[in-house]
């Protein structure tokens, strides 16, 4: 018997070790292991057990076993940002990593039906062969799986031009907390048959079930993909955002703090606005000419960046343990950035980036910043200030335990009752974690 690493709740580990053979009967010897032996998970303590079913039916069986054995299950993709919430019961991570087949790819639609464990990068490589893509740059690591991106439902810079993850999902297969395998939605663009349970599942963060398969809407790659960057002080950068967002070709407009801009090779101390332009050659050429003219008039320089800059940005963000997302109307961006900067008093080396067109400001404290006292109060105060204006403050992408009592989301208000009811429909015995929602 391999040595067990320290567990959060030692009593549970014995039961976990005894359960392992039964779990392996369901998912095969290579499909289950003790948490301590598993690949390290992103945040928090290791789970007691990890199961990687190879089929939806196996996932359903694992959940049935979990229900009988009273385990607490956290759904996961590849597991890179999975955070296991503390629980007195044995914890099991149910990972979709082995559900990594591409079941169908029809370039003439264009749609693809893939296992939840298929990586976004792998999908991009496949669809690029037909000059197509899934315009979803999920918040988080480049190693993200389709299933995780869909379950978290949070997009990246491209959400401005192409929509949030929910806009790309035509249907999906969900294995519910009570072990039902549900084929939700469909495979076609327009579909109003019955209630849109697909949209309920997207962004449900594993609270309703494990997403095992996703039917995706793809798009043709744009004719031209061009990124322009302007570096200046914060006020100047903020003043550039509205015009940049107003260009029809703007697929993403991103404000970067000096910490992030320097990672992309920019000069020290400067903020930057990145504009990603997608479209036909003539349209993008004109947009570029306009941007150059406007910059010259303001005494600013415009730099062209490779598309790889966006991947580098995503990697830099994913390397930080926590994201604080402050969001309000785009017209209030200046105030939202100001509020974020107030938070930075507790975290002077935090990086900041903003999806200018969507009004979402993200703060990325470093790991050492999270040891600073009192930051939870500051975040709580910022959340209340935003809520008073109708905005939101979310902690993401994954809810890490130990955020000093802060929930990932703010007050749900009257919708909490609806959410609880919906949770009960799919996971009546609360086998699955809450996904960071405060039901």
């Amino acid at each position, binding site marked *: 018997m391999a040595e067990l690493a320290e567990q959060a709740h030692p009593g549970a580990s014995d039961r976990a070790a005894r359960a392992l053979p039964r779990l392996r009967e369901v998912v095969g010897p290579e499909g289950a292991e003790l948490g301590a032996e598993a690949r390290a998970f992103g945040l928090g303590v290791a789970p007691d057990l990890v199961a990687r079913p190879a089929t939806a039916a196996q996932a359903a069986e694992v959940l049935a076993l979990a229900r009988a054995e009273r385990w607490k299950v956290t759904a996961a993709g590849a597991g890179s940002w999975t955070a296991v919430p503390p629980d007195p019961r044995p914890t099991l991570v149910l990972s979709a990593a082995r559900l990594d087949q591409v079941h169908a790819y029809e370039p*003439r*639609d264009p749609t693809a039906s893939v296992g939840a464990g298929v990586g976004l990068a792998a999908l991009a490589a496949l669809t690029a062969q037909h*000059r197509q893509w899934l315009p979803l740059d999920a918040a988080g690591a480049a190693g993200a799986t389709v299933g995780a991106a869909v379950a978290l439902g949070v997009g990246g810079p491209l959400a401005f031009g192409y929509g949030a993850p929910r806009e790309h999902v035509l249907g999906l297969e969900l294995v519910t907390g009570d072990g039902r395998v*549900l084929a939700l939605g469909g495979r076609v663009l327009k579909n*109003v048959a019955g209630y*849109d349970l697909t949209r*309920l599942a997207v962004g449900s963060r594993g609270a309703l079930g494990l997403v095992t398969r996703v039917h995706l809407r793809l798009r043709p790659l744009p004719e031209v993909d061009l990124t322009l960057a302007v570096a200046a002080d914060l006020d100047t950068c903020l003043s550039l955002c509205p015009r940049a967002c107003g260009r029809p070709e703007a697929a993403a407009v991103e404000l970067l703090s000096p910490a992030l801009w320097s990672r992309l090779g920019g000069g020290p101390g400067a903020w930057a606005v990145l504009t990603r332009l997608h*479209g036909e050659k003539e349209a993008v050429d004109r947009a570029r000419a306009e941007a150059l003219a406007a910059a010259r008039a303001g005494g600013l320089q415009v730099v062209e960046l490779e598309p790889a800059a966006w991947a580098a940005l995503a990697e830099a963000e994913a390397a930080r343990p926590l994201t604080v997302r402050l969001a309000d109307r*785009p017209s209030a961006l200046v105030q939202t950035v100001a509020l974020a900067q107030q938070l930075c008093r507790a975290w002077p080396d935090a990086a900041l980036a903003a999806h200018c067109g969507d009004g979402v400001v993200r703060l990325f404290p470093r790991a050492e910043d999270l040891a600073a006292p009192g930051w939870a109060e500051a975040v709580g105060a910022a959340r209340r200030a935003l809520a008073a204006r109708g905005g939101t403050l979310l902690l993401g992408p994954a809810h890490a335990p130990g955020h000093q009592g802060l929930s990932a989301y703010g007050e749900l208000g009257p919708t909490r009752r609806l959410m609880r009811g919906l949770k009960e*429909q799919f996971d009546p015995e609360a086998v699955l974690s809450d996904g960071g929602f405060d039901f």
Partner: protein
Amino acid sequence: MALTFDLVDELERLLGQGNVVTDPATLLTFECDALTSQRAVPAAVLLPGATEQVAQVARALFRARVPYVPRGAGTGLSGGALALDGAVIVSLTRMDGILEVDAPNLRARIQPGVVNATLAAALLPHGLTFAPDPSSGSVCTLGGNVAENAGGPHCLKYGTTVNHVAALTVVLPDGEVVRLGGPGEQQGFDLVGLFVGSEGTFGIATEIEVKLRRLPESVVTLLAIFDRVEDASASASAFITAGLIPAALELIDGESIKAVEASKYAVGCPKDAGAALVIELDGAKASLGRLAGRAREICLACGAREVRIAADDADRERMWQARKKIYAVVAALAPDLLVQDVVVPRARLAEIVREIYRIAARHRITMVTSAHLGDGNIHPTMLFDRRDAELVGRVEKASEEILEACVAAGGSITGEHGIGVDKREHLGLMFGDRVLESMCGVRAVFNPGELLNPGKVIPLRNCREWVGSRTRDAHG
């Protein structure tokens, strides 16, 4: 469950006497929506003027256990506004205010009774547009658009209603008022996405915050004439593989063309054409000339005999008329119509269109077909006379086979008209019992006891809450 005098008094106190309709002659005008084959006279029609009035009315009806049905303009094609079981209709048509246009944030707050075309007109001076443009746009209301997740020709490029709703104020069946969505990010489950398309069975939306788009810089419209409808149908995939997504790609078949050309809406389409496509491209002026050229090449490569590019706005209007007037023209050809609303994957369009015609021919049905071809949404339209029982039987058989063929091809039984009562018992073609029971369960979270808009969407046998003593649909 009947309306007591006391309840009517209470409703009149809440809404004002003029806003509680009980006279039989007026009630008769609410006995159906655009699905005229199914009728049910409501017990009363209520006309609230504000969210609070809707909430008060809902509370009163819920307390009295009186079922009620929300209704917009009554243009729905699936019987979603049918007042089954002597339900009361709550009409939202008085609530027709555009409350705010927030141009910098591309948002507008509107009441549910605002007509789609009225919103479009109000947005024009701001250089803005609300993308979903259903064919009934001159009459239908946004509340109805939200209930059905309405589409329209331009949803090919821009998406359907659900892609354009940021937030909702909803009165739940028991009268509680909740706010779904809003500025900032999604907190919790996507309740807006779940509500849109719930066909008035989860609650009544009394305020809608819509997402707007800037008007495109330029638009070009083409009309492509084909000898064969299958060739025209194959063009959707041809556009996609060429990497060109039009703003709209609409199909009309030979029978439709003949009918339009014989009417006052004639646009000069050759009467011997097998099919025509109305194609619209939008974007930067500088690119459109080249894109129009590519679109023409794609059509010719698919077998088009001729491709015309609209020279000016008047020309463009004429081309669209050919597509928009089909329903009006075809409705005059026969006493009754059955309009289907199937969707198939674009890659299967040519094959399924061929199959649809084979099915109609096999059952000796006169059929015309139009389609939002770009998103695979086909409207086979069968002409018949409901007094001819034998013909009705054949029409029903043919429409069943068409539904089955589309589902077997990986499609859907409804792309924009909704399930309502019309396709309720066919929902099982698409979903197994477990999913249907989940849908029932989800509805029960919002609408316990199914007091709001009963008897819609979910097949009766899948719903535990449907009590056997209630009447079934008024079919036949």
